[in-house]
């Protein structure tokens, strides 16, 4: 990170430890907002039809039912409230699929803080519904392109960082995933870990035991770390993150950072990334705008190295198929990002016993993808 940002990161780190970790009033206010405004706890739903079809007990953690339509609300409300406590007058955010952008816009409206969102031109095109939702909530959208027609999530992060460097005193940068410089990966994980904490309580109540596996899709990694975090110490629970294999791992068109990347420094953290031999960050691909990121949260890089989490992949085609299957069998339309997690279990179901319990973190809902899907189906 450039020197200019260091004092702001120190201020944020201080706020993380004194406000997020310790301030009782902040915690109470956040819990209230998550409950009454966002709709927590989200249900843990036994997907009976899908379970019958696949021959394994499948539960869906319904983050798609959160107000905002995805797990991103947990973090955007948390960071928005933190911005308010820190006395910041303006929130900026980056977005890929528009889920974090909309969550930030919604939190900005709710908290009365003007919000501006950076979004790649390619993503603006493929996620029209979320762009409209942000606009309706009065967020200003800054289209980002690095070359004519080229611009996705990493470019949006770059522009948001440049804005922050320029407006450091007044502005809070609400980052959408467990990426970026310290303390963001910790901060965002703390706002998302409620997903796993709820899963644990709910599954113990329903099944009287912990699940066999928890599956989540992985872009930057916030929904995955949120679902996994409370289970990391429960060694018997296998944790599976599903990266986007795009058009296939043998092609250049994927964003399977952990599976195909190497260590590098991107957006202020040292983690796995997709890069050339010369250290240039690669342009990546996924049908899912929210997974289309060449980096990954550093904690995932670590969990991969210690082999606590299995990092698998699903292709665009498998995700589309999973999107269809979940919609048809359960009447639940998943975000194309979350469909990658569903795709994994559809492909791997035969490796599980009938009595095994698999929890899929259904991180977002798929309304935003209907336009895209209608063109394919």
């Amino acid at each position, binding site marked *: *990170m*450039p*020197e*200019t*940002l*260091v*004092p*702001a990161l120190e201020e944020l780190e201080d706020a993380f430890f004194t406000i997020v970790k310790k301030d009782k009033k902040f915690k109470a206010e956040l819990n209230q907002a998550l409950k009454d405004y966002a709709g927590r706890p989200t249900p843990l739903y036994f997907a009976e039809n899908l379970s019958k079809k696949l021959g394994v007990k499948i539960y869906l953690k319904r983050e798609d039912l959160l107000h905002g339509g995805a797990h991103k609300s947990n973090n955007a409300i948390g960071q928005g409230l933190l911005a308010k406590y820190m006395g910041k007058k303006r929130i900026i955010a980056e977005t890929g699929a528009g889920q974090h952008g909309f969550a930030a816009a919604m939190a900005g409206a709710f908290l009365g803080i003007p919000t501006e969102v950076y979004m790649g031109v390619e993503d603006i095109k493929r996620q029209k519904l979320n762009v409209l939702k942000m606009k309706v909530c009065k967020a200003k959208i800054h289209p980002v392109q*690095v*070359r004519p027609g080229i611009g996705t999530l*990493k470019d949006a992060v*770059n522009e948001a*960082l*440049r804005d922050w*460097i*320029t407006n*450091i*005193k007044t502005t809070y940068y609400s980052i959408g995933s467990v990426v970026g410089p310290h303390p963001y990966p910790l901060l965002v994980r703390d706002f998302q870990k409620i997903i796993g904490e709820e899963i644990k309580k709910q599954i113990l109540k329903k099944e009287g035991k912990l699940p066999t596996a928890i599956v989540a899709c992985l872009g930057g990694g916030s929904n995955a770390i949120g679902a996994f975090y409370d289970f990391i110490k429960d060694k018997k629970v296998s944790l599976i993150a599903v990266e986007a294999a795009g058009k296939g791992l043998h092609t250049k068109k994927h964003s399977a950072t952990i599976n195909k990347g*190497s*260590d*590098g*420094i*991107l*957006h*202020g953290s*040292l983690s796995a990334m997709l*890069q050339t*031999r*010369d*250290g*240039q*960050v690669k342009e990546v691909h996924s049908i899912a705008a929210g997974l289309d990121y060449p980096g990954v949260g550093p904690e995932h890089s670590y969990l991969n190295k210690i082999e606590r989490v299995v990092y698998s992949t699903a292709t665009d085609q498998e995700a589309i198929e999973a999107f269809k299957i979940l919609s048809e069998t359960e009447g639940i339309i998943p975000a194309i990002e979350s469909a990658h997690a569903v795709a994994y279990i559809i492909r791997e179901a035969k490796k599980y016993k009938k009595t095994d319990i698999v929890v899929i973190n259904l991180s977002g809902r798929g309304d935003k993808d209907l336009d895209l899907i209608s063109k394919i189906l």
Partner: protein
Amino acid sequence: MNNIENKFKELALKKEGALVIGTVPGYPDLKTSFDIVKKIVASGADILELSSSFSDPIADGPTLTAAHQKVLGSGVTKSQILDFYKKITASFDIPVFVIEYANIVYKIGLDRYFKKLRECGIDTVVIPDIPMEELEPFYHSAEKNGVNLALLIAPTSPDERIKRIARKSKVFVYCVLITGVTGAREVIDGATAGFIERVRKLIALPLVAGFGISQPQHIRALSKHNVDGFIVCSKIIDIINKNTSSKKKMLNELGRYISIMKSATNN
């Protein structure tokens, strides 16, 4: 003492500031880029800055970002750029430093990168995205391989931090003038003067100012506060961009601009 330090010493005796002219190696193409450097040297620049391309240069504004993108898009490789450095240092008698983003150094390998740079005749580097906290491995590897790391300070850096940075910095301290990214600006304001006054008291090394400088009056204003060097880079790229249709005109314009800027350093 390296040739940048010698240059500062020599200029100080003449009571002159150093004009540091920056460009992006390989921009708009390798051949033209060499001719641009030739012109920069011939027009009186004291020190050359080479802003090496990175896909995600977060400290840079639109001008340099687009130039980096163009170089990478044209397929120029790092080894071609290193050959370019070698050619520059062999052809011209001007002190040179390189701006390199951290990931490039990291991916190539710290020792390997600094060694290669040395082999190209370059011994001073600025890494714009490595703060003090993460400096150590870079610092040691650079030192081991005979490369100097010049560090940056910004208007947001508190006094104590500036002192710590100055203690570690080699050859000069790169003083980022504004809270923002690189790019030519119209006005350099009073807050900047206040910042320079503040750091001048804390730093004994040559103080080189950058980010926003594009006009002779900027240099004259900064000279009043004992700034030792003035970095101009985005404006150079702007001039290149305005004259893509005629290389002759481009080089003439660059020459004229650099001489005007240089005359402002003679206070």
